[in-house]
């Protein structure tokens, strides 16, 4: 049984620590905020210029001046501060954000990440993704283990080398997929290591669906 989106988010939430400042990407990473343990102080950064992001507003209370980086209406908290985009990315590049959790199209065994463009398709832009992966201390990717084509084909996303244009090189510390969890020694020579299996998933199944090399060290 592969993990559901919620279970992947719940697993990612285990990477949070008390006092952390965290940037969450759109999609499954956004769900991580549902699993912040009670009593743990975690402040969410929104790279358009806010620290201390609160939940969605109640209907009728949306404020057009208060949106997150996904352009969704949100709310503020007692801890909230606002700042300019240059201050926001100074915070990001300067290594002040403890953790970034984001989605990916491809991750390579050396920590390279691709998640912003597919050649031949309309390019929408990288937004803040390149800054986040380059600047945030620890980068956790949450994604499906394989990409499913419309014809039912499956293409591996954990690769020896990314073939899509890169968002960053040597940037990913951990990958959480629906099948398991990998760590990556992004700045060293330790490569990729499988450290956890989703319930009922076997190492053989993962090996069959992973193109990149990895060693296994299950807890």
């Amino acid at each position, binding site marked *: 049984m592969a993990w559901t989106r919620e279970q992947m988010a719940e697993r990612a939430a285990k990477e949070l620590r008390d006092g952390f400042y965290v940037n969450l990407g759109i999609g499954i990473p956004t769900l991580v905020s*549902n699993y912040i343990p009670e009593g743990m102080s975690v402040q969410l950064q929104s790279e358009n210029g806010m620290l201390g992001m609160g*939940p*969605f507003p109640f209907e009728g209370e949306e404020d057009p001046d208060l949106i997150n980086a996904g352009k969704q*209406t949100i709310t503020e908290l007692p801890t909230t501060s606002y700042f300019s985009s240059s201050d926001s*990315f100074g915070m990001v590049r300067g290594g002040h954000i403890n953790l970034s959790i984001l989605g990916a199209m491809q991750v390579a065994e050396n920590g*390279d990440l691709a998640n912003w463009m597919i050649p031949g398709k309309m390019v929408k832009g990288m937004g803040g993704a390149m800054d986040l992966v380059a*600047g945030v201390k620890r980068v956790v990717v949450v994604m499906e283990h394989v990409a499913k084509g419309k014809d039912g084909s499956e293409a591996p996303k954990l690769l020896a080398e990314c073939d899509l244009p890169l968002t960053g090189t040597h940037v990913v510390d951990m990958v959480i997929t629906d099948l398991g969890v990998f760590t990556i020694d992004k700045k060293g020579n330790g490569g990729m290591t499988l450290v956890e299996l989703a319930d009922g998933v076997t190492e053989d199944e993962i090996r069959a669906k992973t193109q990149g090399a990895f060693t296994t060290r299950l807890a």
Partner: protein
Amino acid sequence: MKKVRNDATEALAGLLKDGMTVMAGGFGLCGIPDELIDAIRESGVKDLTVISNNAGIDGVGLGKLLETRQVAKMISSYVGENKEFARQYLGGELAIEFNPQGTLAERIRAGGAGIPAFFTKTGVGTLIAEGKEVREFDGESYVMERGLFADLAIVHAWKGDTEGNLVYRKTARNFNPMMATAAKVTVAQVEHLVQPGEIDGDAVHTPGIFIKRMIHVAIREKRIEQRTTRTRGEPAIPPAAV
């Protein structure tokens, strides 16, 4: 030295010329100088290079200048929400230079602060670094990026006094403060126009020195791009935090 003008058209009089570079504040539709954009549309000025994080949506914000084909080039980080943009871009009618969002913000900040170039680790080893100097500092690689300076910047603020001191509101601040510093002339639209002394000097986000002209805009309904809500009584749905 009166900075306050009667309307957007008057505020932009004499400042617009074909082929110029214009910075426009805002993130998505949040904090965009919409009345000044409307006046640029009405002026008919064309071949603009527009520096803005996004390109508006169809028929809203910068989307209006795309409809009339007044924009020749965009320098942006993300332009996903605009069908007319996609059509012109894929048809080769519109050029785009993508910048990582933080690099874009810093290039603008640098341009306004007299910094012609700086190094950043963002984009090293990617398409973004191609053709640019990459240099090592303390064992890590960085790419050199240039400052940006425009002919005109248009910004939106929540409050402004007649001296041009501005205060932004919540995430409508975004790119507005840097852009205000990074152009030959900056024109601001403010929702609340007040007299000097009504804004505490410690609370000013953009000092008046950066603002050459300004207008008071009527409070209009602001557009929301992604209306997300939760239901009363249910637990907070994402993005929730402690």
